């Protein structure tokens, strides 16, 4: 099992929902050593498999907020569960928040789990991020790179 994993969650065909996979691509292009970079649609059991046993997992995902400020980034370090009712913009029956809770119940969280949640402008069809979320993806990639390079 690798030491650290970056998981970009989302659907690149649903505009801003692709921010997680965009960050994964940016970090892949930078060639961060000793880092496993994966993309996921966010299905709970897959996430648990991807981060299980890792020292550090950084998850990047889109969130819808009301009221929304597209491009605002929240860094949430688990076990802090985040704001009550916070849910990732998942179109599936079991979302990212439930995946964390399920992993905790099953003792399958990584040693450290950090979520970067990016507020979206929209998750309609299309492969382009909105300008605010595209800018946020660059900031999150830089922040995640620093996070992942920290000594244990």
């Amino acid at each position, binding site marked *: 099992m690798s030491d650290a994993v970056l998981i970009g969650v989302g659907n690149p065909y649903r505009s801003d929902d692709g921010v997680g996979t965009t960050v994964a691509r940016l970090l892949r292009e930078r060639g961060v050593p000793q880092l496993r970079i994966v993309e996921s649609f966010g299905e709970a059991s897959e996430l648990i498999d991807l981060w299980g046993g890792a020292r550090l997992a950084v998850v990047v995902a889109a969130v819808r907020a009301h009221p929304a400020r597209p491009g605002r980034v929240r860094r949430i370090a688990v076990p802090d569960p985040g704001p009550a009712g916070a849910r990732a913009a998942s179109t599936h029956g079991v979302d990212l928040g439930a995946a964390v809770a399920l992993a905790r*119940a099953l003792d399958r969280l990584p040693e450290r789990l950090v979520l970067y949640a990016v507020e979206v402008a929209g998750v309609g*069809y299309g492969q382009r991020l909105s300008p605010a979320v595209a800018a946020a993806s660059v900031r999150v990639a830089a922040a995640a790179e620093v996070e992942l390079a920290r000594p244990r």
Partner: protein
Amino acid sequence: VTHHSDRLLHVASLARVEGEGAMLVRVDGDRVTEVQLNIYEAPRFFEALLRGRAYTEPPDITSRICGICPVAYQTSACRAIENALGVTVDGPLADLRRLLYCAEWVESHTMHIYLLHAPDFLGCPDVVTMARDHRSMVERGLAIKKTGNDLIALLAGRPIHPVNVQIGGFYSAPTPESLREMLPRLRQARADALSTVEWVAGFDFPEFEQDHELLALVEPGTYAIESGTPTTDRGLSFPVRDFDRHVIEGQVPHSTALHGRLAGRGRYLTGPLARYTLNHQWLSPLAAEAARNAGLGERCDNPFRSIVVRAVEVLYALDEAVRLIEAYQPPPAPVAPVTPRAGTGYGATEAPRGLLYHRYELGADGTVVSARIVPPTAQNQAAIEEDLCRFVTPRLDLSDERLTYECEQMIRGYDPCISCSTHFLDLRIERGAG
């Protein structure tokens, strides 16, 4: 007991279903006047975007319709286009196709059984609560599901939206050794699936029986999965090429998915209940015995008991996977010869949620001229609405909260894949003055 003369029940998001939609139940006094399954997920226009594409593309394009059952879309697309081009896929290639489909049944059904449906029967609001109270059960479910996902990845490149399927077969065929390495895990998953059947059979099921005509593929001698003849439990049977004549789709104002009806007959139901009723005699001995011990008879009409049928089908799919791998001899080539030509082809397979039909009209160079895709949830919408109406009527004395919960539970029993049929489900019950 509550008696409201004018009230509105509103569930902002019906949990544990795939996709986005809403349910409206309008009650006038002691009478249910209207039930609507509102599917407001935006239309996705797959049939239109397929026009003008090469005949080689629909399997990969249509697999994107669903992240849970992409193999179903790929296989129905392949069968329809192969039908148009006169391509026969048999022997080891056909076995590999069935094996891949079995793997999808395992992952899709297991997700529904353990993550979406079982919490209803255990008094848990979600799988997280269930994991605290029934941890070993959830771990067992995740392990079975992962075995299914890993078999899909082995055969087709990755577990979601696989990339190794093409018209006529596959881009590459697995070695017998690579498949046989999976056997110990598949046998363990099969033992776990048998335990799953025994576990879910012990749940308490509300009393309710649907009375729809049941439609499923039938392939005498085997439990229909990747091929078969559309057949109903009331004597109707027709070749796949006549599907357009027998299944009429119509628009309703409250849904972006079309409602399917059998011409001259009306609403019908496809999916596990129909499949079991029409195919149970061809279950493997192990799955048949498990079904009997679970109390399933010649047919199953209670949608709440669909969880037992799904568990039997997972057991069967794993038993079948072991059988297919033990007998596997690699094909001489990973794909049958394919030559484009003008024609129209028809394909139907049994997606986890029911019969999935594709039709393609191809030009002389194999370009797609037109396409039609009829997913299971669209076919089931009218039946689900009718069942909700019949289910609610004798239960109007229940509290709004309880009635809403039981309606949600019933909807989950049908495992509607709203993403497929056109995506968040809201449930609303309106009670008028009467």
